[in-house]
């Protein structure tokens, strides 16, 4: 199949697909197109939703037409073929891995044949790329989880995953910004707020950012819970 290709999403949106898998270079083109559209702001564009391999272009059919906007987007797509991927920020996220905060860490490390310290070192030794946000406000899909730690989703999802839970499923990691149902494996918890409607922007992460997790002990975790840290990102 030839990429990029455009697919129909009714009369209020269309997709620009750059590939059909989860791939850093494909995602870089998605993020590149979103930034180019953000700068160009063609008439009638409502917003752009970047995902793993495609950008959803949302438009107002009363302010433009598909034909008109698609022509403008095609021009910009050509410029995204070799978009640089290193344009995001790096977030250092403190995580406490105590058993009550990360109830699945033991199951994950047993499946990997590791002890707790080895599993935590493996998880926190990786640098994670924010492919996209979705599922719920502020929820970033972080890749890739080191291979030994990869497990399919839990057979039975939890009814309640606490906010701040640091979790993995397959090759993806995430932090739950809200308490919600969830089927991912919970490794630990962070006191950092990943979504705050009063903040601008409200989500901590953006597609294209990097995340590094740093282990903290219980005392530090509880201190940070009482006084939530204001994180600043490092430019890469």
């Amino acid at each position, binding site marked *: 199949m030839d990429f990029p290709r455009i697919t129909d999403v009714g009369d209020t949106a269309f997709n620009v697909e750059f590939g059909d898998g989860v791939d850093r270079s494909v995602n870089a083109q998605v993020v590149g197109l979103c930034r180019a559209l953000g700068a160009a702001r063609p008439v009638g564009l409502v*917003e752009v939703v970047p995902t*793993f391999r495609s950008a959803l272009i949302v438009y107002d059919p009363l302010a433009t037409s598909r034909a008109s906007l698609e022509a403008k987007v095609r021009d910009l797509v050509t410029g995204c073929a070799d978009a640089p991927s290193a344009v995001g920020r790096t977030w250092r996220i403190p995580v406490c891995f105590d058993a009550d905060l990360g109830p699945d860490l033991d199951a994950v490390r047993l499946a990997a044949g590791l002890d707790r310290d080895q599993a935590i070192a493996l998880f926190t030794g990786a640098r994670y790329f924010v492919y996209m946000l979705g599922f719920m406000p502020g929820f970033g899909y972080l890749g890739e989880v080191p291979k030994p730690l990869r497990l399919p989703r839990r057979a039975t999802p939890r009814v309640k995953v606490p906010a701040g839970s640091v979790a993995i499923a397959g090759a993806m990691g995430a932090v739950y910004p809200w308490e919600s149902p969830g089927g991912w494996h919970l490794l630990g918890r962070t006191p950092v707020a990943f979504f705050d409607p009063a903040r601008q922007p409200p989500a901590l992460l*953006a597609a294209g950012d990097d995340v590094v997790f740093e282990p903290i002990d219980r005392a530090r975790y509880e201190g940070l819970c009482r006084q939530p840290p204001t994180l600043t990102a490092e430019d890469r």
Partner: protein
Amino acid sequence: MSGSLVVLRSGLHTTIQDFGRFGYQELGVPVAGALDFVGLRLANALVGNRPGEAALEINALGPTLRVDADSVRVAVVGPARLAVTGPLGGDPRPLEVDRGHLLGRGDILAVGAVSGASAAYLAVAGGFALTPVMGSLSTYARAGIGPLGGRPLAEGTVLPLTDAHGGEELTLSAPMDYGSGPVRVVPGPQRDAFTDAALATFLSAEYRVTNEADRMGLRLDGPPLAHRAGPDIVSDGVVTGCVQVPGDGKPIILLADHQTTGGYAKIATVISADLPRVGRAVPGTPLRFQAVTVAEAEAARWALEARIDGLVAGLRRVAPTAGLDLAALYACNLVSGMADPAEE
């Protein structure tokens, strides 16, 4: 002088909604907004508001509201039962929907059952004096995003009003005709994930809205749709109206509160002109689907706009409701007696 509406009884599920919260889907924030943007626009037109002013979206059973203001003009559009009780009590008096009513201090407006559609809209002249959250007054209750803490109305909720009282007392000349033919869809974005037979079935069979119907979506019952190679795709963006098909082959139409991205293949997308009708659908509603092109969908949307504009242009002036005329007079200090509005 501005005042408020105070919620005495919450009803089942009433939220503040406008046209939706756009611009934050890249952060995973759903659009939300009115299920039926036509109903929202007509309710606003009846009280002299701009089309996208935030109003109450009432699902299933409405709230009971007390007027804590000298006066306020309200209009309800949609199949709801309305009754008002004056400040001195007495029997509730039924009020018509699809027209404006001037309520006075102490009046109690009870919105009863909404039947035959999922939503009715209650607009107040001037809108509610609330601060937008991320650029919108829409409520996404699942994550508590929106005004009033992002929550549905509850007993004791105070809805602050503005100073505006609207102009004349207006009524719709005719109710909106939402149509009854097949719901029009544009095939895709994952039309290729389905067999040709599945698409043919989707475009010919009758489906029925199940009880699993809420602001997030409508789960349909009918002939299952076969995927070529399973229902899972690499998650991508979705819009209101996307028809996703999970592993059981039963289509789900995504509505206002849909998540921003989804991992199930989508066979088609309901066109924007038919979203109000689909958004109003209640359990048991039969639906058929018809494929159109994007260009046909765009033309259909312009045709819908022309019909809405026609309805708004055709609003008629009416005489104030008798009892509520008194409320207006109270507000102007022209009447000081203890007349019971119910006796007028």
